[in-house]
């Protein structure tokens, strides 16, 4: 990747200086335009996207949040309808599309939302998700990739601005706000206190720490040949089947639907919950027959969904390289290591083929 191209591309946008002092003011202004959500400290070393009460709590320099943005569009628990048990009737649960501004998100996070958009628009476009996605503005921020971020290796550079309205790049005085679209322009103008920057900004390259041995556009090809790879069995030896990787994945969206009855037994709600294909009962049918009862087949299914099945339809990889599955895996299974092992397997196969 040529960094000069990135610098040139970014400098085509209008730029404004937001000084460190102005950032809380800018957030306060954003709060007059919609509900603002941003990364805030959760524990000493962990971060979470939360509603911004106090602009001082907003963190702009963080490696990643624990959960991806999907929780705002596909809530972990969502009421679909409420029913009256006695009359056997129900009421539709409205999805209110409030105006929301997501402040200070990373490019892979935005890409994750765009992947979810694809999944919920295709086939039967789902109103619940799409209503929540309306009226949202995303303001991106630069980040320093750590050893778990695969985004760069998967073709999503730090300065990827697709889907964003403003992109923030740190400089000595604060941040340069690159205006990406009209919504971003309106926000900068509405705030009105920023100085336009005319000189070229030399964006510092943020090298990726995690590497994948192949260019990302060769990965779908690799996944055409590794269905029977021994790598799946090797992962299964370590994997606990806890489903953390599903829950924290930027692009996983599988769900379960259950009825919850209230304590008075008069009424209740039909709710959907996040589910995960790594959990052992996910592919179970009546009579306890389970079509993916082995961890190896579940791991294989999960990664094929990221690199093959959806990719064949959408043309995009459905792993955005956020690194959450690696960072939070209790068994320390690393996605980059897994992909490299699959690549090795594939290369080995190709060598054998050539030999014969």
């Amino acid at each position: 990747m040529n960094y000069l191209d990135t610098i040139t591309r970014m400098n085509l946008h209008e730029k404004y200086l937001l000084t460190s002092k102005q950032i809380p003011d800018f957030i306060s202004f954003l709060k007059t335009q919609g509900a603002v959500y941003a990364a805030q400290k959760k524990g000493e070393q962990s971060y979470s996207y939360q509603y911004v009460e106090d602009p001082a709590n907003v963190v702009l320099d963080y490696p990643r949040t624990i959960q991806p943005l999907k929780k705002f569009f596909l809530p972990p628990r969502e009421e679909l309808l409420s029913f009256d048990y006695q009359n056997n009737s129900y009421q539709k649960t409205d999805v209110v599309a409030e105006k929301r501004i997501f402040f200070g998100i990373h490019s892979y996070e935005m890409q994750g939302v765009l992947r979810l958009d694809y999944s919920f628009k295709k086939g039967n476009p789902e109103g619940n998700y799409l209503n929540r996605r309306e009226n949202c503005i995303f303001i991106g921020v630069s980040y320093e990739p750590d050893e778990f971020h695969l985004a760069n290796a998967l073709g999503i550079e730090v300065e990827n601005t697709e889907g964003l309205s403003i992109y923030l790049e740190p400089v000595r005085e604060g941040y340069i706000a690159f205006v990406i679209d009209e919504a971003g322009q309106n926000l900068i103008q509405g705030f009105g206190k920023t100085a336009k920057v005319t000189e070229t900004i030399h964006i510092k390259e943020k090298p990726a720490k995690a590497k994948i041995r192949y260019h990302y556009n060769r990965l779908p090809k690799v996944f055409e040949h590794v269905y029977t790879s021994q790598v799946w069995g090797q992962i299964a030896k370590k994997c606990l089947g806890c489903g953390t990787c599903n829950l924290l994945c930027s692009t996983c969206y599988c769900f379960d639907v259950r009825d919850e009855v209230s304590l008075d037994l008069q009424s209740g709600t039909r709710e959907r919950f996040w589910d995960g294909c790594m959990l052992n009962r996910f592919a179970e049918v009546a009579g306890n027959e389970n079509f993916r009862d082995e961890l190896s087949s579940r791991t294989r299914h999960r990664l094929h969904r990221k690199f093959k099945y959806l990719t064949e339809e959408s043309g995009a990889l459905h792993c955005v390289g956020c690194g959450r599955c690696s960072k939070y895996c209790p068994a320390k299974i690393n996605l980059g290591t897994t992909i490299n092992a699959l690549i090795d397997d594939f290369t080995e196969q190709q060598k054998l083929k050539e030999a014969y």
Partner: protein
Amino acid sequence: MEATTIQKQELYYPLMSEIIQVDHLTRTEKRFIISLPDGQSLGHKPGQFVELSVFGFGEAPISISSSPTKTGQFDLTIRATGRLTDKMHHLKTGNLVGIRGPFGNGFDVSLLKGKDMLFVCGGIGLAPLKSLIDYTLARRSDFGRIIIVYGTKNPSEILYPSEIKVWQERPDVEFHMTVDRPDVNWEGKVGVITTLIPPLDLVVERTVAAVVGPPVMYKFVLMALKAKRLPDENIYMSLERRMKCGVGKCGHCQINHTYVCQDGPVFHYPDIKRLEEAI
């Protein structure tokens, strides 16, 4: 974003529909005849399914066991095997249930016209196939021979005894039945369903087999059909998965890249022959 330019759909709201008749079929199975509000027709294809729900007990995919030629009402044959289906067995005529659908890909009857039909039904697999059996009987002159092969574990599990009696008596239906474990009163054949296939005299070029049964059955039925030299192109089957949403989102019914609720449950055998985890 183009979120606003596409037609958003309300996917998860059921139509409250009335149970108009309940038939006790076996100790564990009942047939529910259901009518949608305002006399609407379900408009299904044989082999499709609906999402059935009872508030407080959840929702589950159930295949439709009546022919689309019967309008204004439809049948669901339900085995009591879980929370929702146990609750269903306590419901009575006049009770309301939630219906979404029909969903999925049924049998394409236009491709079956003029063919000899071979129905291979294992256990409760007869329920989804009954929609197609009834359809072929309602349009009898559109089809060649109608051969029904049916196997159950024991005589007490035989579904639809009155319909079976009619099929046995009709000269234009060839009906063969077997049970794995006979009781003292059983006078018919004993053995697994695959024992009924070798004696059949089939004209394989014009025979189409429709196969539905428990997961363990498919492999053996396919072997038996292969031994009869029935071409793969002439085999259709319906696969069971727990389709939670019915609209290709929730992921539960996915086999590799295939969503059973969208591309199935009825599959043309050549399309899934190489699909691992399918059967």
